[in-house]
């Protein structure tokens, strides 16, 4: 009987030609069955012929760059008015299906954050506007343009004011278009606001340096980092870039036994705070005073003049000492939207001589430009505007006291929204001119001084939409299409700044291909003007209960509230999905007899469930923004509570309230968390050490590894992996827990969304998770994190017990799942000590043989969202176990590629989705049989251990111990 090889194993040693020579013979039983089966199947298929009426038109001439089933990557840019990322868009068979970071960009450095990762689903958001609308009725562009231009002209004639409201705009061409628009309609004002404003920082810098900018922070250069309510690893300004920098000086190895020290001063437990070596917990009201005290301490030590400030409760001398010791190697950042605080911080950095070292004013970040004052003015003069254009923004939702705006929109003659999806604002306006998704649009960006990038459409407009810029061009009466416009703009504005090695055509092509152009802008550091002498500190009094409002890592400002991927992504700290909550401290909960899930009423206005959060400031409640959307698709609607309306608008928008009242209601509201137990129970799960101990002994904290290796024995011979032996190393010291890997993994592998109800029942499907444990004092705990995915054990307890052999081991050391074979006994999952296997409890994907039992609370199986599925990964049916596959499809793709190119695979060529997107470079995948691979080198580190290694499961994931910089 002919024998087909089933694995590379059985093939090794066989004559290659012989394998190819095998012929299919008719007499073979198996072939008979095959043919018989085919006959039977075709009978069924043919009998259903009348259904197969899809229209498929083949290419007459195949486009050069498109090979069916082979992905193309297009460089583009992501900017949502808040955060910037240079990206690559994976387009397969005409559909963008995945976003990766662009390696060429110094901002993203190949990484992304979870919002960028997930933003691709917004392209396929089923709630998107499909047509322009007038007063809520469908219309067409021709009609709507005529009407709008008419009205604009009328307003112009009447000399009425027109406002274009937008978030920060970093597109040079768009800016120019708005300028053109202004030329056409001179009464136009462009008002910029940021939902999460940093106006205070910008203004402080203006005062200190004469330039309203965000300086270029260099976390990698700092030995001591002090973050004051600045979640720079999670949400603040440019978290991906900062994480990349931060981790550089956090990673340790046998060759580099130093790391920076990170002190975080904050009220709520932020992602950044949870990574700090030391956390100082303050109430928001204490912050400015603390900064002032710190300033005084440093000034005093340096013989400079102090400012008048009352003594603060927290002793800052140690902190000041540490900073002084690391003069010009330290960095103090503050995330509070308060000019005075920011001025003080600037002065501290100045005293510490950090400017030019860890902070540069060159190449300033431009992603946030909003001026609180502009918006305050606009809101107070609403009546004077005859026309308002909402340029991809939603102030009715994300600006405080928006009732005024709501009423005024109704009374304004001309209101236009350029939103892609229905939101609170666009539902009120007269004209909805739906914009393209950014993946359907041309655009250019200038995220940093000297850095330019392009965005190119990766798919034709799915609906009858038009990008904002085109609308403005049209209304301004400019005939150019936007691409031409950008090109011209670049030719005249940007190209001249380059060294002009290429002619413009080549420059343009190269820029488009690379996605980014980075030009060295050298200018001298601006002079620092310290005028603290006149500063008068805010009169903050510590109260019984304060409120801190923060930006959540996953949902951000709330723009992506309808993105179920982001909603289901657990919060990096609390692990809560599908909700925001009022974080309260353990002591407060005890005092007030509150438990997680109890609903409280704050200031008699909002009701919100509490979450007992270790490390929370005792008298402060923290609540995330971005929830409580009312006009949004199903996934975001009525999820959580909106706290934008609690923000106080004084000179600056204040994201903390000095005094609030609260009362406990009788209601409860279940919060869906993915992790219900926070303590490691003294187990040897995350191993850690301190840098001092590490310097003495690189094995410190990991002594047990050697002990266990000594007893490493087996009743049977271990399998030898002769070709590749895939493995992964996870550096627990690098991982910040930002969750981007989880998002990327879910997107890459078609992990279904199950919705809050199912998460509550512990039915979430994520293939990887980031375990977070607290240790020590519950009021100020230490936090450890550990990404856990399938450990690909070489002696896997799960494989043994599968009755049908649906899960088994590949010849390259991968624990593989044959979904087709799986009958869903869940035995493997029970027997997995890591609990990384996930079961398809329902038919999440519309792939079940039985009809009418779809479980898809968030419409992921509708025709449109389905487009985002990765065709290289099987969609799993109901009743099937699934789990991390080491992105087997990527391994196969690269192996095939190398084979076609007739070369050996290179180390680092294969990157699983989690590794590729990790901003912390915490994950390294590779071949253990290649002794020079990065993963092999990491395996050599004395910090390497395996999770539950005493069980002798022989995992293929190695963890490197966490090192803290504390004594």
């Amino acid at each position, binding site marked *: 009987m002919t024998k087909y090889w089933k694995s590379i194993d059985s093939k090794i040693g066989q004559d290659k030609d012989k394998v190819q020579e095998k012929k299919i013979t008719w007499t073979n039983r198996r072939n008979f069955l095959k043919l018989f089966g085919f006959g039977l199947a075709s009978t069924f298929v043919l009998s259903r012929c009348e259904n197969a009426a899809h229209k498929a038109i083949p290419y007459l001439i195949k486009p050069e760059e498109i090979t069916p089933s082979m992905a193309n990557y297009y460089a583009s840019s992501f900017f949502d008015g808040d955060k910037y990322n240079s990206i690559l868009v994976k387009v397969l068979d005409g559909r963008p299906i995945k976003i990766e970071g662009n390696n060429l960009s110094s901002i993203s450095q190949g990484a992304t954050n979870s919002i960028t990762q997930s933003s691709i689903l917004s392209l396929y958001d089923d709630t998107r506007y499909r047509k322009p609308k007038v007063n809520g009725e469908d219309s067409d562009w021709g009609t709507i343009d005529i009407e709008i231009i008419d009205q604009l002209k009328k307003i112009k004639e009447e000399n009425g004011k027109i406002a274009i409201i937008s978030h920060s705009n970093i597109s040079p061409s768009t800016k120019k278009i708005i300028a053109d628009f202004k030329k056409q309609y001179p009464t136009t004002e462009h008002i910029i606001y940021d939902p999460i404003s940093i106006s205070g920082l910008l203004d402080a810098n203006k005062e200190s340096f004469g330039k309203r900018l965000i300086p270029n922070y260099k976390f990698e250069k700092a030995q001591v980092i002090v973050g004051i309510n600045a979640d720079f690893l999670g949400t603040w300004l440019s978290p991906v870039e900062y994480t990349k920098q931060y981790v550089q000086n956090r990673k340790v190895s046998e060759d580099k036994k130093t790391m920076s020290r990170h002190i975080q001063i904050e009220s709520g437990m932020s992602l950044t705070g949870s990574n700090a070596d030391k956390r100082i917990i303050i109430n928001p009201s204490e912050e400015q005073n603390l900064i002032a005290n710190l300033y005084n301490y440093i000034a005093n030590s340096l013989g400079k003049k102090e400012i008048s400030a009352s003594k603060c409760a927290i002793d800052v001398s140690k902190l000041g000492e540490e900073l002084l010791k690391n003069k010009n190697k330290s960095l103090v950042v503050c995330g509070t939207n308060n000019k005075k605080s920011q001025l003080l911080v600037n002065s501290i950095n100045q005293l510490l001589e950090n400017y030019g070292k860890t902070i540069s004013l060159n190449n300033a970040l431009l992603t946030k430009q909003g001026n609180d004052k502009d918006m305050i003015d606009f809101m107070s003069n609403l009546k004077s505007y005859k026309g308002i254009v909402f340029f991809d923004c939603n102030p009715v939702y994300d600006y405080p006291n928006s009732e005024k705006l709501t009423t005024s929109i109704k009374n304004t003659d001309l209101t236009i929204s350029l939103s892609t999806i229905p939101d609170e604002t666009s539902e009120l306006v007269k004209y909805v001119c739906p914009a393209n998704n950014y993946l359907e649009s041309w655009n250019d960006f200038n995220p940093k001084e000297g850095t330019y990038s392009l965005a190119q459409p990766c798919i034709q407009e799915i609906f009858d939409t038009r990008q904002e810029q085109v609308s403005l061009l049209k209304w301004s009466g400019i005939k150019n299409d936007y691409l031409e416009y950008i090109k011209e703009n670049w030719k005249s504005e940007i190209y001249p700044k380059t060294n002009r090695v290429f002619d413009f055509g080549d420059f343009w092509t190269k820029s488009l291909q690379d996605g980014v152009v980075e030009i060295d802008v050298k200018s001298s550091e601006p002079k620092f003007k310290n005028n603290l002498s006149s500063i008068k500190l805010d009169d903050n009094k510590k109260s019984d209960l304060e409120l801190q409002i923060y930006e959540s890592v996953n949902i951000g400002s709330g723009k992506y509230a309808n993105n179920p991927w982001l909603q289901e992504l657990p919060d990096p700290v609390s692990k809560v999905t599908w909700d925001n909550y009022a974080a309260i401290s353990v002591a407060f909960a005890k005092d007030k007899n509150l438990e997680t899930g109890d609903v409280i009423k704050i200031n008699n206005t909002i009701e919100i469930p509490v979450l007992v959060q270790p490390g929370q400031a005792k008298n402060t409640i923290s609540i995330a923004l971005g929830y409580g959307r009312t006009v949004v698709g199903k996934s975001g609607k009525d999820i959580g509570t909106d706290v934008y309306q609690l923000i106080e608008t004084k000179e600056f928008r204040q994201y903390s309230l000095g005094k609030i009242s609260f009362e406990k209601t009788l209601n409860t509201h279940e919060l869906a968390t993915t992790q219900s137990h926070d303590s490691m129970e003294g187990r040897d799960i995350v191993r850690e050490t301190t840098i001092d101990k590490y310097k003495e002994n690189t094995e410190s904290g990991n002594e047990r590894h050697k002990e266990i290796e000594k007893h490493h024995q087996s009743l049977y011979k271990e399998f030898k992996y002769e070709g590749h032996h895939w493995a992964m190393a996870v550096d627990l010291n690098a991982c910040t827990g930002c969750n981007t890997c989880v998002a990327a993994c879910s997107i890459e592998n078609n992990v279904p969304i199950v919705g809050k109800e199912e998460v509550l029942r512990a039915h979430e499907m994520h293939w990887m998770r980031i375990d977070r444990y607290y240790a020590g004092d519950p009021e100020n705990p230490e936090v450890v994190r550990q990404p856990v995915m399938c450990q690909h054990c070489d002696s896997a307890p799960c494989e043994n017990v599968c009755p049908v052999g649906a899960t088994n*081991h*590949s010849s390259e050391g991968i624990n593989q799942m044959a979904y087709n074979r799986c009958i869903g006994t869940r035995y493997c999952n029970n027997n997995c000590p890591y609990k990384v296997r996930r079961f398809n409890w329902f038919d999440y994907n519309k792939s079940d043989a039985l009809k009418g039992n779809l479980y898809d609370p968030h419409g992921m199986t509708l025709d449109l969202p389905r487009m985002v599925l990765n065709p290289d990964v099987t969609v799993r049916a109901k009743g099937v176990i699934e789990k991390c596959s080491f992105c087997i499809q990527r391994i196969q793709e690269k192996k095939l590629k190398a084979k076609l190119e007739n070369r050996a695979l290179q180390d680092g060529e294969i990157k699983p989705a989690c590794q590729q997107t990790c901003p912390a470079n915490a994950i390294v995948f590779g071949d253990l049989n290649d002794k020079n691979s990065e993963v092999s080198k990491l395996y050599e580190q004395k910090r390497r251990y395996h999770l539950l290694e005493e069980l002798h499961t022989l995992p293929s994931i190695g963890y490197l111990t966490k090192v803290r910089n504390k004594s």
Partner: protein
Amino acid sequence: MKEISGYYDKEASLLSAVKSLRDNNIKIKDVFSPYPVHGLDHAMGLRRSWLPRAAFIGGAVGAISGFGFQAWVFTRAYPINIGGKPLMAVPSFIPVTFECAILFAAFAIVLSYLFKSHLGAGADNKIYDERATDDRFVVVLDTADIDNNEAEKIKSKFEDSGAMDVKYQD
């Protein structure tokens, strides 16, 4: 005359009847009783049944084929690394081997029993007396080649040993 049968209502009289018939060299065709009578097989001179051997053979076949099949599947038909266990995972094969042995043995003996005894769904065996499954004992003699005289003698033998009734059958 083909058969003579004697009817008893006591186990003891049955046993003595059978004994005396055998002492007189009269061939007993069969005895029917409502329950297995202790010592009857000795009295009738029945040989031990070979049925346990069927079970033994069945069990051996079951065990060998069970084990062989598993070994073939794991080492020849589709060798695959499962949990790092050896392909020839003998301890893992024991349970199935054991179950196969028991199953084959049980079916071998039961089927042999039914086959040998002409028992089976819908089988239509001759019933001498319906009370033989209740409280009567019946001794049936094969008398195809004996004459009336002898038959009378046999009848008296029956009656002597306490038979309630004696019947002739052609």
